[in-house]
Structures are given as C-alpha cells and as structure tokens.
C-alpha cells in the first residue's frame, strides 16, 4: 500500500530555509490585506478555516489518520466561546480559553475512543462521533437548536483591542492563525513529529522500536483537536454566531476537501486549499446546490488526477518540501 504522501523529503537546512521564506512571505502578504481594500471578513473567515485545515493536516499528513469528524471541534469550541461571551459575559480572551478548553476536553475523550481502530475504521468512528455530537447539540438547550447562538458581543481583547473594529479584529485573527501555524510547524519538525511520521509509514516497526504508538497518536489527536477548537473560537468573533452548520458532517467534508486541494502532508497546502474553497463558496454562493456538486467534482478530480494537491505539485516540481 502506498502511503498518502509519498514524497515528503527529509528535513534539510535548505528545506527549512525555503519554508521560513515562504512563511515570512505569507505573513507579510496577509499583513498587507487591510491596506488593499479586499473584503476583510472573507480573509478572516479563510484564515480561520486555514488554521482548521492545518490542524486537520497534522493528523492526516503526519500521523496518517483521516478524521472525518473535525467539525466537532470547530463547533464545540464555537458553542463554548459563544456561550461564555453571551451568557456569562466574559472577556474575549477568557471566551477563547473556554472554547479551546472545551475542544481539548472533547479531543481527549474522542481521541481515546477513535484511536482504538486504524485506517478506514478510524475515519468512520470519527464521523460517527461527530454525528453523535451533532444530535446532542441539536437537543441541548444551551445551543438553541436550529437557531444557534446569535448576536455575540465581540468586546475588548485584553481590555485594549476593540474587536468590533474590522481592522483590529483582522490582525487579532491573523496573529492567532500565525501562532497556531508556527506551533504546528514546530510540532512537525520536533522529535515527536518524526515519531509520528514513522508511525504513518510503518506502525509495526515503530512499535518494535519501542514507541508506544497509541500514546503518540492520542497526543497528536488532542493537539489537532485543540488547535481546530482554537480556530473555532476565533471564528465566533468573525461570524458572531455559532450554529449547527459548524458541527455537521458536511463541514467535516469541507475541511477534508480544503486539505486535499492544497496538498495532504504539505505545510502550506491547507492554507492554500482553505482560501481556494472559501473563495469558491463566496463567488458561487448564488448557484445554490451546484456548489455541493462542484465540491464533489473537485473531490473526484483531486483523488483521480491531482493527489498531491496544489502545493504538493509545486513542491514536487521544484523538488522542495513546502
């Protein structure tokens, strides 16, 4: 069986340098967005999904675990943050902490259950768990069912930054995204990340070398779920609502699609994929259900002809790792 990402190159100083250049370029370009007149809400939304897709990619691209239920972290953190902000009236930083803690707690529980099976079963279990959570949120009173939690106050972050101002909010979201991205980058290039890759390549061998692979997988799952939750908390400030859409399986599918389009197991792929898919949804919003059809076509086309994704193809062409 060929691995999901067959040409990850070893980390060399040159690769590290390439990646840092691309990262700096990305940070500068994103930092300039408010000056260009591009609709900031579109970019903020895309940044939240980019972080979400990066968190998802940590699991599939480096751990070989395809989670089909990552929307549950997005939605759970969203509900926790929204509830804390609106009902408890806490400050934004506490709201984010509550959301991230909620997602972290959920990822400990769901991770413990789902890593008990591998491969295809893992995907089905995560999907089933997220559906279980969807039905719980549908009936739980604090989520307000079909209506969701609306009109969430944005408040002042650390008492200084007024999040109701789009430009301020934009830089806060951008800072959150970059911090999350760097954390993932650090994880991938740490000894922990190397063990994770070895588990993806050959779990039996990793076990025989003495690694407790279940613990590594669980930790990766928790990290991925927590970061996905962080993205969900940030998204609450952008969208100012938390609804069932964020927990639905279609959302999990979109996360998978973003990462697949950008390139599974590439560092920058999920970011590119998230921008592509969010832009597509924005421009094709008037076409109703055809958006679903187009997403399906992209899935099929990617799997059949374009398995490396946009960034993966570029990296392969230049023989670099990106």
């Amino acid at each position, binding site marked *: *069986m*060929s*691995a*999901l990402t067959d040409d990850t190159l070893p980390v060399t100083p040159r690769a590290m340098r390439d990646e840092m250049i691309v990262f700096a370029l990305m940070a500068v370009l994103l930092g300039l967005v408010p000056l260009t007149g591009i609709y900031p809400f579109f970019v903020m939304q895309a940044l939240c999904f980019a972080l979400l897709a990066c968190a998802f990619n940590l699991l*599939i691209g480096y751990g070989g675990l*395809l989670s*089909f239920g990552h929307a549950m972290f997005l939605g759970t953190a969203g509900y926790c943050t929204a509830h804390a902000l609106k009902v408890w009236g806490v400050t934004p930083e506490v709201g984010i902490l509550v959301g991230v803690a909620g997602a972290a707690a959920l990822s400990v529980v769901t991770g413990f*259950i*789902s890593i*008990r*099976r*591998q*491969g*295809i*079963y893992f*995907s*089905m*279990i995560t*999907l*089933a*768990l997220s*559906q*279980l959570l969807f*039905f*719980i949120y*549908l*009936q739980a009173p604090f989520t307000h069912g079909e209506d969701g939690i609306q009109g969430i106050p944005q408040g002042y972050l650390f008492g200084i930054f007024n999040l109701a101002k789009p430009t301020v909010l934009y830089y806060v979201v951008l800072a959150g995204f970059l911090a999350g991205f760097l954390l993932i980058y650090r994880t991938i290039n740490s000894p922990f990340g190397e063990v994770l890759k070895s588990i993806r390549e050959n779990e039996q061998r990793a076990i025989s070398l003495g690694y407790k692979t279940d613990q590594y997988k669980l930790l990766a799952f928790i990290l991925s779920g927590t970061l996905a939750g962080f993205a969900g908390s940030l998204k609450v400030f952008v969208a100012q609502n938390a609804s069932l859409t964020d927990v639905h*399986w279609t959302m999990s*599918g979109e996360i*998978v699609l973003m990462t*697949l389009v950008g390139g599974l197991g590439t560092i920058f792929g999920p970011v590119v994929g998230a921008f592509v898919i969010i832009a597509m949804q924005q421009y094709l919003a008037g076409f*109703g*259900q*055809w*958006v*679903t*059809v187009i*997403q*399906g*076509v*992209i*899935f*099929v086309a*990617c*799997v*059949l002809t374009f*398995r490396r994704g946009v960034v993966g193809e570029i990296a392969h062409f230049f023989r670099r790792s990106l």
Partner: protein
Amino acid sequence: MQALYAQLLVGLINGSFYALLSLGLAVIFGMLNIINFAHGALYMMGAFCAYFLLNLAGIGYWWALIIAPIVVGIFGMILERTMLQWLAGLDHLYGLLLTFGIALIVQGVFQNYFGSSGLPYAIPDYPQIGDWRGLQGGINLGFMFLPIYRGWVVIFSLVVCLATWFLIEKTQLGAYLRAATENPTLVRAFGINVPRMITLTYGLGVGLAALAGVLSAPINQVRPLMGADLIIVVFAVVVIGGMGSIMGSIITGFALGVIEGLTKYFYPEASNTVVFVLMVLVLLVKPTGLTGRAA
C-alpha cells in the same frame, strides 16, 4: 404495549435497511478495499428510480423492485470501471474520499431538481385477491395491528440478506469471490477474471443498496438526502459488527435496529444517538468489533 410493538416493528424495518446496506458495504470492502461512502446516495437513487418508473413510465412497485437495483447497479459498475478501479494499490483512504465526492455530486444534483422535501410514493395496491389490496391495509394480530407493507419489508429484506449470504458462502461463484478477497493474484493465475468479478461485486453491493431504497420509498418518502444521514449510522453499525463476516453484518444490522426501536419507546430523546453510543461502548470493550477481524 401497542406502542412498544409498533416501535419494535419500526426498529425491525430500520434494522433491515441497516442490514442490507452494511451487507453491501462489507461485500464491497472485501473485494475492492474501499469503504463506499456513496452507498447512501445510491440507496437514494434506488428510491428515485422507483419514483421515476412509476411517474414517468407508469411502471409499478413490483417491477421497480427488480428494475431499480439493476439500473442503479449498472450505474455503480460504470462508476467502478471509470473511477474506482484506478485506486487499486493506493491507500484505502483515497477510496473513501473519492466515493464521498461521488456522494456529494449525486446528492447535489438531485437536491437541485427536487429540493429537500419528500416526494410521496404509494404502497402498491395490486395484485388484488379477494380482500387483499396488494400490500395496503393491515392485519390485526390480536396483540397489535400489523401494516402489511411493513411486515413485507422485514420479511423480504431478511430473505434477500439470507440469499446473499447463501450466494457468497455456499455457491461456486461465492467461493471464487471469497478466494479473490483473500488473494486476488493467485485467483487470477487460475484463469479467473478478477477485475470483472470486482466490477460485479460492486454492482451487487450497489444493487442491494438500491433495493433497500425501493423498499423504503413508501415508508420514508423519496428525498435527495434520505441516504446521507443513514449512511453514517450504517458506518457505526459496520464499526460495531466488523466487516469480517456476512452473517455478522446481517445480525448486527437487525439487532441494532431493534435496539433503536426499543430506545424510541423507553427513552425517545436518545433514539437518534443510541447506535453511536453503542459503538463507543463496543470500542471500549472490544475494539475489533463484535465479529470482525483486526483491521
């Protein structure tokens, strides 16, 4: 007690759909190493096929029961020939992603033309023999009133499941199939056309899903998303039962349907979630599933 029996019957009916669908998933997984995410969409196509046959061509339920699985089965075989076969040798996960894409396409197209509301499909009222009007009406069993159509769905599904089990476990063709599941290269060396068997297997699994769709059309109405949520429950059923044994899939499917029905009676709030909760419990106690081999 009436309500309890009624919920048990509903549970048995859902159980028959779980059994038919998880059976198809297991057979397909055995041969193609693919979890067919499009299974729910193909189940929906079966129901729509019956609807079109009735409303466009005037062809009724009994013929639809034969024609729809064949038509959808052929559609499935075309999918297998044009797309799925290229995934041989790749990671299992690509099969899941590809079939997920196919499901989105099929469901999206149907939603475009038919929205999200249900289209009615009447219970057949022929053949008429004496007082019997096809499968309409019901029988008073003394302890409960049994709608004939619902009884028919349970019995017919059970027969189809057992026939599939017989085909795979007891016939020559089934022996080839099981052999090819174990070792396709060796079976090919014996002169058996394994790629064609793979295509036919996919057609068979898809046909079973379409058949379940036709059976459910008069009960659940015909909706573009009728299979979307069902397939996730069926995934949980598959995780609980494991995909190692055909009989295991059948028994798990029916058993979970019954448990779901009982939950609807005793604690209705949990009826949507009980299968998933059971999946969690099974994973904690016996991670390989009830009948499955380690995967």
